[in-house]
């Protein structure tokens, strides 16, 4: 069974190869009666029996009419998918355990509307319903659970439609070049794995989370005396520590070596946590991995670079 399934998958891949843009053509659309269509055939048979038994040509005519409607709706079901254009749009990267979303733009190369399109990539989520109106672009967002670190390719999309009467199922497979980056799941650890920096060596800070107080933090016993905000203490405001994040003069190196662990994934998770922490706090930081160094910096692009490096750590390029 799986052999057949594999063969089928390969056959489909050949017919609908991965592309930057997919336009549905007659070769890539499949039609078959749906379950409801099978029930409809039984209904037609019942009506035909009624007509034959009563020798009533109008009833027989109705059964033939319904048969013909089913035949014609094959063409309409087919037409409902024909000419649809799928173009990848934005993506929402995600961390392991979250949901990555892929936006896709659907439009039609013909003048007609396309009704009741159902798109599905994953059995975990309900299919997305979409309608494409002639001359307009419809945007859909497909969600996928992010299970592993690295690139998450959008799998082959199954597109189905039961239009017009639910009797015929028309479907197609859409394979788009569309991938999202899945970052390691952020896991906190007590201390940031700080490595030796250039110029600011030897500075260790307690990076306790807590409410910021105008650039000051509450005094923690054991903190270096150099960090105590003496001026505020002299004014009688109590013992505070100068906050380096507020001062923005300090910068740190997050260092793989400093983690001292054998669990690669946990190490990456911890680094991810601290990358996010520094980036959220707007503190300048750099990242040192065994085979890669991200120079110091701030901002979202810098954070993305750091996270990408973490996500793709040890990742073997496939394509």
């Amino acid at each position, binding site marked *: 069974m799986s052999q057949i*399934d594999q063969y089928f998958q390969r056959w489909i891949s050949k017919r609908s190869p991965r592309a930057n843009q997919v336009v549905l053509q007659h070769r890539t659309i499949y039609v078959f009666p*749906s*379950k*409801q269509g099978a029930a*409809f055939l039984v*209904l037609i048979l*019942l*009506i035909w*029996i*009624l*007509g*034959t*038994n*009563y*020798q*009533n*040509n*109008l*009833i*027989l*005519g*109705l059964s*033939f*009419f*319904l*048969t*013909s*409607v089913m*035949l*014609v*709706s094959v*063409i*309409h079901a087919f*037409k409902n998918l*024909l*000419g649809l254009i799928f173009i990848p749009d934005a993506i929402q990267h995600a961390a392991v355990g979250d949901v990555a979303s892929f936006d896709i733009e659907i439009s039609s190369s*013909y*003048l*007609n*509307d396309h*009704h*009741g399109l*159902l798109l*599905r990539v994953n*059995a975990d989520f*309900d*299919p997305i319903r979409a*309608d494409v109106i*002639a*001359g307009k672009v419809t945007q859909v967002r497909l969600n996928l659970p992010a299970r592993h670190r690295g690139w998450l390719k959008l799998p082959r999309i*199954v597109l*189905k*439609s*039961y*239009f*017009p*009467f*639910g009797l015929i*199922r028309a*479907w197609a497979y859409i394979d788009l070049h569309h991938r999202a980056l899945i970052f390691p799941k952020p896991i906190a650890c007590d201390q940031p794995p700080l490595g030796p920096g250039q110029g600011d060596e030897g500075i260790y800070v307690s990076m306790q989370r807590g409410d910021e107080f105008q650039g000051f933090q509450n005094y923690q016993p054991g903190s270096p005396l150099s960090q105590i905000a003496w001026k505020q203490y002299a004014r009688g405001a109590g013992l505070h520590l100068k906050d380096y994040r507020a001062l923005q003069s300090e910068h740190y190196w997050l260092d793989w070596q400093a983690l001292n662990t054998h669990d690669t994934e946990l190490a990456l998770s911890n680094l991810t946590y601290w990358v996010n922490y520094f980036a959220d706090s707007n503190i300048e930081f750099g990242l040192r991995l065994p085979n890669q160094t991200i120079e110091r910096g701030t901002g979202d692009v810098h954070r993305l670079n750091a996270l990408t490096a973490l996500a793709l750590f040890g990742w073997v390029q496939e394509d």
Partner: protein
Amino acid sequence: MIFKKSPAQEQPISRTGLAWLLCVQVFILAPHFVTVPAWIALVWIMVAFWRWRIFQGAWNYPGKLKKTILVFVCCAGLFFSLGSGFKFESMVSLLIIGFTLKLLELKNKKDFVLLIFIAFFILAAQFIAFNHFLAAFYGFGCLSLLCATLMQLYRQSEHDSIWRNIRPSIAILLQAIPFMILLFVVVPRLGSFWAVPTPLQAKTGMSDSMSPGDFTELMESNELAFRVSFATEIPAREKLYWRSLVFSLFDGKKWSQSREQKSGNYFNQASDNLRSHLEYKADRVEYDVIAEASMQSWLYALPAPESWSRNLAFARDMRLRAFDPVIERMGYHVVSSLTYQLNEIDAEELEQNKQLPKNGNLKTRERAQEWLAETGSTEKLIAKLFEYYRQSFFYTLKPPPLGVDTVDDFLWNTRQGFCEHFSSSFVFFMRAAGVPARVVVGYQGGDINSVDNSLAVRQRDAHAWAEVWLDGRGWVMFDPTAAVAPERVQKGIEQSLSATDQQFLAKPFGSSFKLLSLVREQWDAVNLTWIQWVMNYDSSSQASLLEKLLGDVSPMRIAVLMVLTGGGFGVLLFVLLIFRSSKQELPETARVYLQLCKKLKGAGFAPQSTETPRAFIDRVILSKPNWAIPLQGFIELYEQWAYAEDLEAEAKVKAAVRKFRI
């Protein structure tokens, strides 16, 4: 690969969907309330209201107990109003009640689809009672609504107008018609699989006996008995004696068929001696009869039938009948020879046709013997009796009531009556004189439809006449009514009645309104075509049509026909639907500009591929300065519309192009 469940079916029902369904139910159920107890309509209204309140969130779905009670009450109601026997009405009623109550269980789209499927079946059942072509139109309307309701589930636009919702499904239905016709023509017709309960229908037409007063009812009825379309010329009206039944038995009150006539072996369709006792002489007419359902097995034919459809039997008293009661409209083909001689030589039979009751009508018996002695021969006796009728009788549909000895009272006393009195008294008189005679009933004449030259015979054309056995000539037909009221036979019943009698009939025959009668004739012609081509299309007409189309009917040829025509329709439809819509739409502005270009092309100007509209127009104006004003006006408005997206300019631009003349 393929979804485990159809997600569309798990969705709850939308407001529009429910409204559509309720509306469709009204249309589907309406025709059934002619046959089905009316209280079901009340149940429907109640249930529909309930369902709507559920939708609004005001009421709840009924619990198990309430549902059980409802089902029980409805079934009890059915039992009381229809009885326990399995009748067609009970079947349909049960179906309709199920259809109605299912509304209270309607929760998701799966139930919705189920309800629509039941609706298709109920729609089919309505054709059992109604098979007029108007019923077909109504059915088509219902079908469109049903399909639109079904399509509603798979379409996005819920708030569109009704027309925009129905139009696509009507389009699909129309596209399906060629395939339907092909299937209708080709798919073999099988007989009934099992005996079916037939719908109750009022028995119309004549009964299998004739007693005074029976015919009056018939003659008041304008209802259709049968239709005839002649392949040969329509014979003169006075020759149109449609035989249905022959009565040989008289019990003093009532004429009826003898036991032999009723028995099965009275038919000798295949018998060789038919040819020996029936001589066909001349005046062959060929015709198709479409008999309305009469719930009786006798049919109608002109004497003497020479050949007839295989589904008919020929009885020895020279009449056609069906093997089973005619419960559906039935068509058959007959060839008759209007000039014929019927020599039936069966002593027992002749004896039977002399029988009279032991007592009663003494005066007639006496007079018959007297007159026979006076005249000496049967022919002369008949002539004398006819002379008597002619001189002293009066034709009326409202004869005075007759006493115990009906024949005596009519012949020697009241002397007013119509065909039933005349034929009855005539045959009695002949038998009293010892001459074998019998009553024949059927229809006389009919209305010729000038549109398609068919003949419609109605119940009011019912007639009774007589046959007398004359030695050497066999059974000879006599119509005493014709002696009294010849115009009855020549022109039909309307012309043969006095003014008061006409009022008595009172049914609007429409003959006074020329236009109305023309419309009616047209209507009848359409109806007849419908019946001939659609309602009566059966295995034999199928065989002959296919033979005409294919030359020879073989499964191979039918398959070729189906593949060629079906495939042809399919390809045609495919091309129409898919390639026609493949035109890429140009922007509205470009189309308008191209319209102008087309006009300018007539004057020899064509835009170059690199030219903007303004450059092109400027070039045109340079060589045709007299077009400067309209073209300048156009280009300015055009640019406003196309580039500044000034929508107000749109109409002006279009008008400018329309008005522009080269």
